[in-house]
């Protein structure tokens, strides 16, 4: 047994259950599929838990400590949460975030549905329209924010000029400032919603509509009894992604108003306490609250979606 007679055999050495050891095929098999599967998913899992999961747990730990000038003072239990929840600024930003989410997602859905229904019909120029619809999506949100900041501005006041509003100060008072931000968001994302819904519409076979027509269903009846139910998965996905995105809004209000006039979002508030007024404990408590809120709402959606989404993907025709 000096090793001269035995050829090296990578197949049996890696050995993780790659089938019959003695068989000639096992020799050439290299890593088994199972082992390969584990190796393939581990970098993703490692990266996502390291950068996403672990910090969330750490944020919770941070949030239990009291800080002065970025230096930990000691364990404070839920003191930071009490401070956060009794801070009127938190409630203001929570209110703005909810108002923003509710109105922008509703408007985006209605407009996006209109666009999608229109684009789902056969006509000339559908390709061009689809390309045009991508443009608001590829424009960086910061660019969109600057653009609408100037358009809503008093000078040059493009919108004021068009609608003859004189010196109406959109971004300088609460209410209209929030409206301007919501409007910018709807402009940027309604086309994206349309795209997602269009993808769903195209999976609905035409014969369903034909038989609906034969049964005497008018356009409205066809929309409510055929389109909406069959489009449910696409609608839920679009609403899920848009709601979660709207709840974490940061760029638009940050650039358009810097949070003035009741337009501070939860994300802006957290960032404020982390970077500008350094209080890691309070910042972490606020970020944990935000996290729980958004994930909670997200989970409700996923529940509504059922296992449909996940299982459908696994079977993945």
């Amino acid at each position, binding site marked *: 047994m000096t090793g001269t007679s035995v050829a090296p055999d990578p197949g049996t050495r890696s050995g993780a259950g790659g089938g019959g050891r003695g068989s000639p095929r096992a020799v050439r098999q290299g890593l088994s599929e199972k082992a390969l599967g584990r190796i*393939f998913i581990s970098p993703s899992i490692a990266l996502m838990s390291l950068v996403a999961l672990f910090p969330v747990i750490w944020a919770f730990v941070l949030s239990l400590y009291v800080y002065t000038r970025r230096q930990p003072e000691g364990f404070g239990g839920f003191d930071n949460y009490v401070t956060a929840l009794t801070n009127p600024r938190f409630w203001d930003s929570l209110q703005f975030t909810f108002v923003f989410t509710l109105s922008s997602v509703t408007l985006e859905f209605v407009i996006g549905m209109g666009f999608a229904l229109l684009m789902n019909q056969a006509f000339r120029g559908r390709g061009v329209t689809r390309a*045009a619809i991508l443009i608001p999506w590829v424009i*960086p949100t910061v660019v969109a924010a600057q653009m609408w900041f100037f358009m809503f501005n008093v000078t040059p006041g493009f919108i004021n000029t068009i609608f003859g509003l004189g010196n109406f100060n959109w971004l300088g008072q609460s209410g209209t400032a929030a409206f301007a931000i919501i409007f910018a968001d709807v402009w940027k994302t309604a*086309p994206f919603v349309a795209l997602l819904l269009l993808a769903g519409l195209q999976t609905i076979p035409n014969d369903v509509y034909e038989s609906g027509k034969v049964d005497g269903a008018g356009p409205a009846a066809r929309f409510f009894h055929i389109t909406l139910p069959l489009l449910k998965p696409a609608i839920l996905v679009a609403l899920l992604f848009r709601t979660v995105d709207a709840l974490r809004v*940061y760029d638009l209000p940050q650039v358009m108003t810097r949070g003035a006039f009741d337009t501070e979002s939860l994300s802006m508030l957290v960032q404020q306490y982390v970077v500008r007024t350094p209080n*890691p404990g309070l910042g972490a408590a606020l970020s944990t609250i*935000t996290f729980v809120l958004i994930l909670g709402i997200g989970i409700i959606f996923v529940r509504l979606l059922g296992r449909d989404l996940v299982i*459908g993907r696994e079977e993945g025709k």
Partner: protein
Amino acid sequence: MTAPTPVESTRDPELDPELHGGSSDLRRLNRRRAAQVWGKTALLSVIMVWCLFPFVWLISTSLKQGDRALNSPNLFEGPFGLGNYRAVFEQSFHLNLRNSLMIAGVTTILCVIVGSLCAYAIARLPIKRKILLLSSVLAVSLFPPVALVPPLYELWRTLGLLNTWEGLYIPYTAFTLPLTIFILTTFFAAIPKDLAEAAKIDGATPFQAFYKIIFPLAAPGVFAAAIIIFVLSWNEFLLASTFAPRNPEIAQTVPVAIAGFTGAVEFQRPIGTITAACVVVTIPMIIVALIFQRRIVSGLTAGGVKG
């Protein structure tokens, strides 16, 4: 695209009144069709104007010279010139562009490599608890990035990753992975199983089957995913403005620079420079969107909606 125009439809023997003894019913039908086509065209124009008009305004403003022109809401009031663009690059905006390009590029490469391995495993390899795995991936895509800001900020400060490219592309990769995995799983699952089987019978190991046969076939999907990842990381603002707020020489990205342009007088933003910078950032993205329109749409819809 396939819809008959009014002219074509009169040539249609079924509908041509001449061929059917001038039935007025059919003529009315024809007129209704024409009206429908015009109606659709009109509604379509509404979509186009809605999507494109603000951008037209942006370009026209960026080309205007002098205070009076810049402050005039008239799209066509000159004088026009490239002065704003010159001013943008004098503010070392090219360094911001370089940072953004590198950070988004590295994110894209990392994400595609790591994500396609995972997606292939989910789509094709025998692993346990796939549903749990996919649900966790979905959960990560719901994470608010701001939840990571406090701990990562402290960690990055300790590790010296604030104001570095690494400090940005590492979290970007982690955050775009869920979407990448969703998109690519769909594409991998669409490749016929027999191909990998055939490769195995020919003596390829499972890994060889993956990178020699399956991966090249999934190239269109991978490409679509890559464009989407690039666009998303090119546009990211919250983490970029938290972890690398200043210094275009080091890691400040384009969106942070655009948000940070301030005028000589406080509260007054230099509209000419900002709009020019916005155009510089957006034009490449728009070209990408127009050229790869089909791929982006198929990738987005694969990631967003099943089927």
